[in-house]
């Protein structure tokens, strides 16, 4: 480990290791490795063979099943077995670490299967586990999305904190004719930035430090939803540029990330001439959006960041997941009506998202709606269940119908005509 002088008390610095699982995890770990952040060690758990020449600081675990001949690398029942073989190596890698950053893309096979057990194993050896995951694009198949959801739930139970980057958030910033590879690269970008942001948060020292325990306390819990947004700006006007960048961040989304948050964490890392005014300018953005929410503020200095300022914002929401996207909602009722439609009809729904999202997947992943009744089993007159699509209720518009003719009561940016329980995102169940 590099005894870098800018780390916190030498000897007491936070030891962090990064484990990437699956194809996406491996990709992202490679990019983080390229950044050469001091003090990190990496491991990759994937179904590919390790690179021919050993890469410094990277431990490679190949989890392909031995009798693999064109078959899936980790079958439904095969996942845990594959990990058991490598468990000792993994334990050795994790031994003595304070935090493990687990990176995986959910929805596929390796990442979704192995991330929860790896997290479990790492926790058993005494390390804290922060998982950085991406969920599939809306146009990817329903099965991937279902897998992603179940993987996310399992990971939430197994890890200390899960920071999920929903790829559908990228829909806002990607042009309709973006290439598929470009879209995935942008998604990787965001995750890499986020990971670096959290690394800086934990390792850079400064007047206001955020400790690992506090971070895990905020992120942890089986039902919490965390969102992560990082931004960086340089130059004399960096505070203002930072605000613009943050607003343009697809996850931050002009501040909707902060709505309904139970707690917010903001960490600034800047050069030695970090000023109160710069912090104020960015914090104003947060306070305007939500004055009542508790905000933890961290400020650290990194001499390597001359004339630059970076901010990492993490917002935590508790309780049920946010209202699902149109595709999400429709998958569940579809899955439930399949048995109801009768045992003879095998319905294969691959639902299409909203028109704008279909346009993104111009890379050749065509999506179609099929309903294939098994040959000869059922009378051909039986129709398939109608495509269920439940759009989000237009609560905003209806909620002030009684007050349509009068002037809306506005107070500090809030429309008081809207029901209070909706504005405070209170969950009634």
């Amino acid at each position: 480990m590099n005894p870098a002088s800018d780390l916190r008390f030498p000897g007491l610095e936070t030891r962090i290791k990064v484990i990437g699982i699956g194809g996406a995890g491996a990709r992202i770990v490679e990019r983080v490795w390229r950044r050469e952040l001091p003090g990190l060690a990496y491991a990759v758990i994937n179904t590919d063979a390790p690179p021919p020449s050993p890469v410094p600081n990277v431990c490679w675990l190949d989890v392909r099943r031995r009798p693999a001949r064109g078959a899936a690398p980790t079958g439904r029942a095969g996942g845990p077995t594959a990990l058991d073989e490598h468990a000792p190596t993994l334990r050795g890698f994790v031994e003595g670490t304070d935090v493990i950053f687990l990176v995986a893309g959910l929805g596929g096979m390796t990442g979704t299967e192995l991330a929860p057990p790896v997290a479990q194993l790492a926790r058993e050896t005494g390390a804290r586990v922060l998982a950085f995951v991406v969920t599939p694009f809306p146009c990817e198949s329903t099965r991937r999305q279902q897998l992603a959801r179940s993987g996310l739930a399992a990971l939430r139970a197994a890890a200390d904190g899960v920071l999920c980057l929903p790829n559908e958030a990228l829909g806002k910033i990607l042009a309709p004719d973006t290439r598929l590879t470009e879209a995935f690269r942008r998604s990787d970008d965001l995750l890499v930035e986020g990971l670096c942001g959290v690394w800086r948060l934990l390792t850079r020292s400064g007047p206001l430090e955020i400790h690992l325990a506090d971070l895990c306390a905020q992120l942890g819990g089986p039902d919490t939803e965390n969102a992560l947004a990082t931004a960086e700006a340089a130059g004399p006007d960096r505070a203002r540029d930072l605000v613009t960048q943050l607003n343009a961040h697809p996850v931050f989304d002009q501040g909707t990330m902060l709505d309904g948050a139970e707690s917010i964490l903001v960490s600034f890392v800047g050069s030695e001439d970090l000023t109160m005014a710069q912090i104020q300018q960015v914090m104003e953005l947060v306070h305007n959006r939500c004055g009542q929410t508790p905000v933890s503020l961290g400020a650290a200095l990194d001499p390597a960041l001359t004339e630059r300022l970076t901010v990492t914002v993490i917002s935590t929401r508790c309780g049920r997941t946010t209202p699902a996207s149109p595709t999400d909602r429709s998958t569940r009722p579809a899955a439930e009506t399949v048995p109801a439609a009768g045992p003879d009809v095998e319905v294969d729904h691959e639902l299409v998202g909203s028109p704008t999202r279909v346009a993104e997947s111009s890379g050749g992943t065509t999506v179609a709606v099929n309903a294939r009744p098994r040959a000869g089993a059922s009378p051909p007159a039986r129709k398939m269940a109608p495509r269920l699509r439940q759009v989000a209720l237009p609560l905003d518009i209806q909620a002030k119908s009684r007050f349509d003719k009068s002037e809306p009561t506005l107070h500090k940016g809030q429309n008081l005509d809207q029901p209070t329980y909706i504005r405070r995102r209170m969950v009634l169940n």
Partner: protein
Amino acid sequence: MFDATNIIVGLEIGTSKVCALVGETNAEGAVNIIGLGQQPSHGVRKGEIIEPARAEEAVRRAIVEAEHMADVEIGSVYLGVTGGHIRSFNNRGMHPVCSADREITSEDVEDVVKNAKAINLPADHSLLHTIRQDFLVDGQERIPDPVGMLGARLEVDMHVIHGNTNRLQNAARLVKGMQLEVEEIVFNGLAASLAVLTPEQKELGAVVIDLGGGTTDYVVYVHGHIRHSGVLAVGGDHITNDLVHGLRLSQADAEELKVKHGGALPAAPGDSPTVALCDGAGRPHKVLNREHFRTIMAVRVEEIFQLIAQDLEDAGLLGDLAAGVFLCGGGARIPEVARLCERVLSLPTFLARAGSLGGLKSALDQPEFATAIGLVKYGAFKQRKQARRMGSLAQSLRQTVGQFLRF
């Protein structure tokens, strides 16, 4: 002005009800309530008239009912107004004492009051009230009457309440269109505080919160004078609306639910988990989750108090209110609303009672009529002041003519 009728009528065109209260002054100046007309209001939202035709109908009916009960013909009213556009602030006027012996005369007092009334209002706003507070003589505060004192600099604080001219005149125009004269336009909150607070409570410092159907008006008294007033355009209607959307009810069902089963605090653990709405025959036709219902309602009522608390804190008044909070208006009927208010504002809270008026006990006891009672009291007070002025004018006239004749 010269006629001898001592009938004072207060008219409040509210969001949930229109109320006309008839009062009669006797020789000693005490006021008796002799008539009350009340109708459900239509076409009024958030305290302001948005559909004049429907509102006029309701007002007409209320006036007729009041006339019947009091057995008088109503010619003029004191009209209560409110609305989110109403603002208030304190203005200070200064006047140097010019006389050689530095004695403050009543002319000095008149001058300083005139100076204090020189205010800059926004272009589309007009004055509603200027209420004189205490004087300051050479910086010494809380002088009630400086005439006869010695000093170099005389100042006075005025509390100014103003509102959008057009919106204030809307209500007045409606009333005038019914062949009724508008004696004066009065701010509802001010009227409610006149009805509800005793001079002792005003001296100790108190805030009156009128929880109405369309708006919540509040007025703060410190050291016996109005220090701050405001209107929050959120009221009982908003609670009903929240229930309509939270529980998927119709407007009527939500209103009934709120009135019959509502409360300011979330459901206690011992209550039954559901609440049933009964139809006309008493059979339950809708069963709802009590916790959801009470949560939605409690959160809205709490927000109202929180907004008022924030305003009072910004004005720096929370420490001066020894007598506490007095709640009136329909919202004061919500069970445990006083407890919630106490929790949010950290001040002792009481349900207000209108006092020092005789007459219809049924009217006086109900919190919804606090504003109308206050309007009548305001009218009585104004008429007494005028009578005194007329009396002194008549007296001086008699003296002058007498002198003439004696010549």
